[in-house]
């Protein structure tokens, strides 16, 4: 096997070390991934855009700067991808919508800027649910994505293209976003590691907004260590996002090896009740026992209002989306209808033609919930119940250090299976949405395969800004197990 044939099996650190010791060049690493994308993307549809030419230009430049000693950081020379809702300067940024099918972003998102400055090489933009609204990647205007573990199954959503990309090793790292579970659910369906940090940990500047009080960006990769390295680069204050917190960014890799002796893990009884698939429950139980064997203390906790999270979310998220998406008016950028007869016609037809059905449903629900006469019954009520959900977590964290449970009630479902039933799709996210509403950090890491042969992920929830502890816990688990290194045979 030549060097180039095995680059995709390396960790971020492995690639970094390879290009810095001269084992292979940044160009060779970039080419290795571009070749894999060319070979496998047609069957997976995980990328909307492949930035082949700019990637090669960047690779030449970064090779030079590494040779001169100008670039030494952890991301220097490492290829990566971005979910197609991060603005990337000069690159098509579609949000998987016909509304932005021709939108070449005039600027970089904060996180894109950070990765660029760190010497990463952008391979392309990942497919996703349109405007990040969906749990299966089927609402994309650019077609569904296939799950590399079984191409008849969905990869999850909304960061489905990113999850499939990592699972098939078509990039060593990508950035996703999570509003109600959009990093954690696809990570679970695709056997990868992904973290949604605390709301406010990472700047949302240049990240196309869906629901502003919930949206948060986060890394998706094979391992917790790779997520930690990435988070080191993208976390921290940015004045261009007024909700981005001014708190010190720890070195997330420095504490990965901490002991788990005495760690108090809470299991919310509501997450193990009716509705959880028995074969998923088996895999979760087995992993919990492994933590127990390593000295962790398992306690039951209760989140009594968690069953209200999905209804709260389907008021709050559509309300915020209806406001955020009002900027797409066919005037300044994005789709414009042909021959508008007046200004109202221009707005109404441009928006009708540009958005897909799921996006339009949510805009209308949000508009309704915020309209005169309904505001108190829907939006105000949902905000009150949102506080009850947050208080449940605050009470639980008095007794435990972290919370664990399933990321999703089932393994990956079939493409087309839930497409025409939005409600059953919404209920897929019942374990991830409560965490989002509270603004807490949540992650998923691989813990094995269910009886149907499909991957299962563990959801790990930490207290506010305790990402370092969460990454430590997942990393330790990945020292005892090798689930996270497993790749479908076809993509090995």
């Amino acid at each position, binding site marked *: 096997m030549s060097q180039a044939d095995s680059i995709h099996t390396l960790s971020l650190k492995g690639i970094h070390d390879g290009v810095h010791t001269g084992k292979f060049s940044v160009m060779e690493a970039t080419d290795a991934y571009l070749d894999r994308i060319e070979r496998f993307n047609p069957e997976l549809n995980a990328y909307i855009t492949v930035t082949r030419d700019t990637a090669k230009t960047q690779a030449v430049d970064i090779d030079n700067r590494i040779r001169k000693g100008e670039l030494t950081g952890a991301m220097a020379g490492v290829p990566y991808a971005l979910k197609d809702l991060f603005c990337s300067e000069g690159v098509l940024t579609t949000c998987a919508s016909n509304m932005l099918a021709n939108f070449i972003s005039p600027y970089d998102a904060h996180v894109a800027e950070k990765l660029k400055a760190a010497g990463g090489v952008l391979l392309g933009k990942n497919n996703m649910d349109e405007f990040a609204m969906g749990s299966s990647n089927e609402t994309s205007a650019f077609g569904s994505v296939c799950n590399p573990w079984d191409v008849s199954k969905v990869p999850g959503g909304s960061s489905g293209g990113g999850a499939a990309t990592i699972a098939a090793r078509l990039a060593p790292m990508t950035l996703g976003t999570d509003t109600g579970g959009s990093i954690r659910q696809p990570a679970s369906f695709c056997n990868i590691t992904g973290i949604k940090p605390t709301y406010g940990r990472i700047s949302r500047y240049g990240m196309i907004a869906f629901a502003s009080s919930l949206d948060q960006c986060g890394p998706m990769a094979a391992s917790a260590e790779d997520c930690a390295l990435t988070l080191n680069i993208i976390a921290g204050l940015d004045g261009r996002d007024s909700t981005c917190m001014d708190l010190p960014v720890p070195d997330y890799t420095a504490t990965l090896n901490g002991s788990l002796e005495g760690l108090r893990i809470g299991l919310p009884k509501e997450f193990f009740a009716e509705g959880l698939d028995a074969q998923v429950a088996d895999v979760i139980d087995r992993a919990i026992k492994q933590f127990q064997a390593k000295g962790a203390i398992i306690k039951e906790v209760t989140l009594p209002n968690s069953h209200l999270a999905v209804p709260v979310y389907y008021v709050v998220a559509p309300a915020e989306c209806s406001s955020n998406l009002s900027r797409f008016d066919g005037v300044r950028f994005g789709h414009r209808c042909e021959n508008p*007869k007046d200004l109202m016609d221009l*707005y109404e037809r441009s928006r009708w033609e540009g958005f897909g059905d799921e996006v*339009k449903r949510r805009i*209308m*629900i949000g508009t309704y919930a915020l309209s005169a006469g309904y505001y108190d019954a829907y939006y105000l009520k949902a905000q009150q119940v949102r506080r*009850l959900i947050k208080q449940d977590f605050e009470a639980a964290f008095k007794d435990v250090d972290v919370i664990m449970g399933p990321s999703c009630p089932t393994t990956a479902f079939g493409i087309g299976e839930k497409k025409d039933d*939005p409600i059953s799709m919404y209920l897929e996210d019942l374990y991830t949405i409560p965490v989002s509403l509270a*603004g807490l950090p949540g992650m998923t890491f691989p813990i094995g395969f269910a009886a149907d042969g499909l991957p299962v992920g563990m959801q790990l929830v930490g207290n506010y800004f305790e990402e370092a502890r969460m990454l430590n816990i997942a990393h330790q688990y990945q020292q005892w197990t090798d689930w996270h290194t497993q790749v479908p045979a076809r993509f090995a």
Partner: protein
Amino acid sequence: MAISEDEVKKVARLARLAVPEERLAAYTQSLSNILNLVDQLSAVDTTGVEPMAHPLDMVQRLREDVVTETDHRAQYQAVAPEVEKGLYLVPKVIE
């Protein structure tokens, strides 16, 4: 709670979405289903609960009162559907 076709038309107008007549029934049905899901909230006692607009207790950060924005007009208008002499064009509003 079910929503009527007339209400859907009204909401679509507020949201600036031109729903074609033949799609109205399907939208009415799916929006009603979502509102039914959401209606569980009405049974919850929230007396005295302060609404939560935001996950973190934080105050608005203020920046120095200096110019930070530079002129990007040409760059931003390059992606606009129709511009002329630095202005965005729309159909005539005033006759």
